[in-house]
């Protein structure tokens, strides 16, 4: 039986349930903080109590997404300097964003090895699309992102000829038309 | 209390045929032409500012606060080799005899702020505080003429109170020209927009001029020099008072640290 809940509705007690997405605990009582249907998930391995979460009616995953530490984002490079690349975040954990969020990939966060030798110009170019992970809420202006994992890096880039390039290895991409190679920090597919 | 209000109002009304200098050479408020109004001041009047001063010259009253040297709020204004001096000049709505809605940043206030900024930029040892900002905020509580003069003098005291390093101590004084006579430190009754008035800020020890403003023109060059003389002598009178106050204040302060010798 699906139950409709709204913020403030009591949905259970801490002695019998664990709070999930859209549920918070106040004075040992589980209370909904989102509009939607209440879903009870059976305890999985290791857990003893079932989990309560709210499946929001409006969006696929609930509240509008916001970058958080650990989330994997798809972002577009807007500016490249010797110390960092600036990006605009487009998608978070597979969900497109409504609002503009800025990020920065600093020199030391581009790749895992030879951090000191990273040349940003050889890793990203403006208008590239990258997959990156949020590593901190950053400074006042931008979130700090990292591409220092094999599966992270450039996933889409255009060559000078304006054609989408094909990855050659983890640090080069090639234009299918001109056959010219360009340096990138390429994400492993 | 209101007698004071009455008096100034009725006099202001009959300004047309007013005699500014009496036959025995005294001014409306009984001062001699070279005499400065009564000055009272105190340092450290405010709790949150790094330095502050209250200053009263006749019925003109100002409060000045100094914040800094501190980290500039906007990155754009950072100077890497020196401190930036900023100044804001605002007047309370009840400051003048007639009720007038005043706004921060009107033309007159902006001009006054600029004069002060320039004068103090020259005297503060800005190179000692790179990448920082020093703010001087003026609040005029009552304006009976010479608000800028009072503000400059109060700002000097507030900077001393804040412990900001300066190459010299700035003192200001103004000179008006009424009935063919120079009068030092004119009150609002004695100053009018069409009458010449010289506002001078001097460095008290080196006797250099920090700022000089002339409103309306003087009859000739010679009288300009005379005006400068009057203003300088007025400034010296004022400096004596300020110097006494600063010494008194500093001594008190250093004495209360006497606990070390308990």
């Amino acid at each position, binding site marked *: 039986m699906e139950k409709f809940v709204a913020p403030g509705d009591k949905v259970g007690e801490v002695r019998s349930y664990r709070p999930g997405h859209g549920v918070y605990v106040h004075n040992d009582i589980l209370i909904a903080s989102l509009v939607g249907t209440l879903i009870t998930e059976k305890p999985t391995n290791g857990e003893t109590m079932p989990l309560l979460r709210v499946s929001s009616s409006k969006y696929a995953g609930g*509240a509008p997404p916001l970058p958080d530490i650990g989330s994997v984002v798809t972002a577009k490079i807007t500016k490249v300097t010797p110390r960092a690349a600036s990006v605009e975040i487009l998608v978070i954990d597979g969900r497109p964003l409504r609002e503009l969020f800025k990020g920065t990939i600093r020199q030391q966060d581009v790749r895992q090895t030879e951090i000191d030798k990273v040349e940003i110009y050889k890793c990203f170019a403006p208008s590239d699309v990258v997959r990156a992970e949020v590593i901190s809420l950053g400074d006042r202006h931008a979130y700090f992102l990292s591409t220092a994992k094999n599966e992270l890096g450039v996933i889409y880039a255009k060559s000078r000829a304006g054609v989408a390039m094909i990855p050659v290895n983890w640090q080069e991409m090639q234009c299918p038309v001109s056959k010219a190679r360009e340096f990138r920090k390429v994400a492993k597919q | 209390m209101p007698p004071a209000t009455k008096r100034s109002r009725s006099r202001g009304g009959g300004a047309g045929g007013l005699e500014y200098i009496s036959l025995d050479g005294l001014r409306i408020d009984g001062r001699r032409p070279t005499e400065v109004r009564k000055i009272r001041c105190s340092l450290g009047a405010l709790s949150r500012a790094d330095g502050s001063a209250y200053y009263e010259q006749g019925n003109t009253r100002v409060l000045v606060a100094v914040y800094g040297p501190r980290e500039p709020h906007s990155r754009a204004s950072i100077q890497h080799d020196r401190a930036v001096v900023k100044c804001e000049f605002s007047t309370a709505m009840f400051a003048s005899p007639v009720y007038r809605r005043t706004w921060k940043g009107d033309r007159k206030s902006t001009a006054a702020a600029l004069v002060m900024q320039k004068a103090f930029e020259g005297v503060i040892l800005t190179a000692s505080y790179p990448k920082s900002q020093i703010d001087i905020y003026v609040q005029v509580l009552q304006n009976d003429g010479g608000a800028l003069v009072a503000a400059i003098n109060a700002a000097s005291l507030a900077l001393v109170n804040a412990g900001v390093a300066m190459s010299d101590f700035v003192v200001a004084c103004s000179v008006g020209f009424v009935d063919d006579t120079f009068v030092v430190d004119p009150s609002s009754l004695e100053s009018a927009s069409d009458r010449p008035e010289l506002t001078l800020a001097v460095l008290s020890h080196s006797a250099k001029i920090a700022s000089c403003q002339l409103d309306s023109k003087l009859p000739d060059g010679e009288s300009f020099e005379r005006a400068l003389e009057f203003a300088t002598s007025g400034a010296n009178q004022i400096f004596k008072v300020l110097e006494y106050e600063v010494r008194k204040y500093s001594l008190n302060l250093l004495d209360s640290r006497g606990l070390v010798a308990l």
Partner: protein
Amino acid sequence: MRYGPLCRVTAAPKPKTSEAHKRSDGRTGWEELRPVFLKASFLSSAAGSAYFEAGGTKVFCAVHGPRAWASSSIDAVVHCEVRWAHFSGRREETRTAAGGERSRPSESATDEERELGASLARTLGTVTRVEMYPKSRIEVSALVLEDDGSSFAAVVTAAALAMADAGIEMADLTAAMTAAVVDGNVVVDPNAEEERRASGTVMVAYMGNVGKVTDLVQTGEMEIGQLAHAIQTGCQAATQVRGLIKACLEKQAGKVLKKRGRGA
């Protein structure tokens, strides 16, 4: 064009049909609410939106964000703007009362609009789980189209509905209600005429389930016992309104699900 679900609810409490309790708009109980009309999700450009009508008072509210916001605090900031439309019947009154000389150009907010905007921001800041949206700002704008009394309460209620509609996590649904002392009686949800005659009014925003007053605005002169009674009555009525908000959301959720079902 997307149309949100409609929800028309006529307030439930049935009249104590005594002539003595008859009110100027025909209501027959001191604690009777005016007919309420709620609608959510009608603006596709906003993250959440709501329209709220109580009698002749009509309010619009839109929520945008959370948006990236450079701020020194980690928690989300709720920013609110509240405006009374020129034709709402209220703005003109407040303007000239301030004294002719000081009236400002009509585009900028009046002191009262700024005050109530800040007040709404505090209320929503209280109910929103701001820690869930770091470094961001949630923007709420409300417009009173028509003011027939209890308009700020209507603004708070509409804002709560719009926030819920935007899918923003909140500790509770807050709803607001005005109570006024008219001819010595505490009446709930006063209309403009009653507000004018009132010796005092109090608006309370209340989280019905958590049991906390999130906002309080009192005007006029009131005895302290009377004030406490008015607050209590207001909170009870607000709890009732909370039920209406939830009903509207439930109805809307049903429609959304149905639509999805058809699509699939």
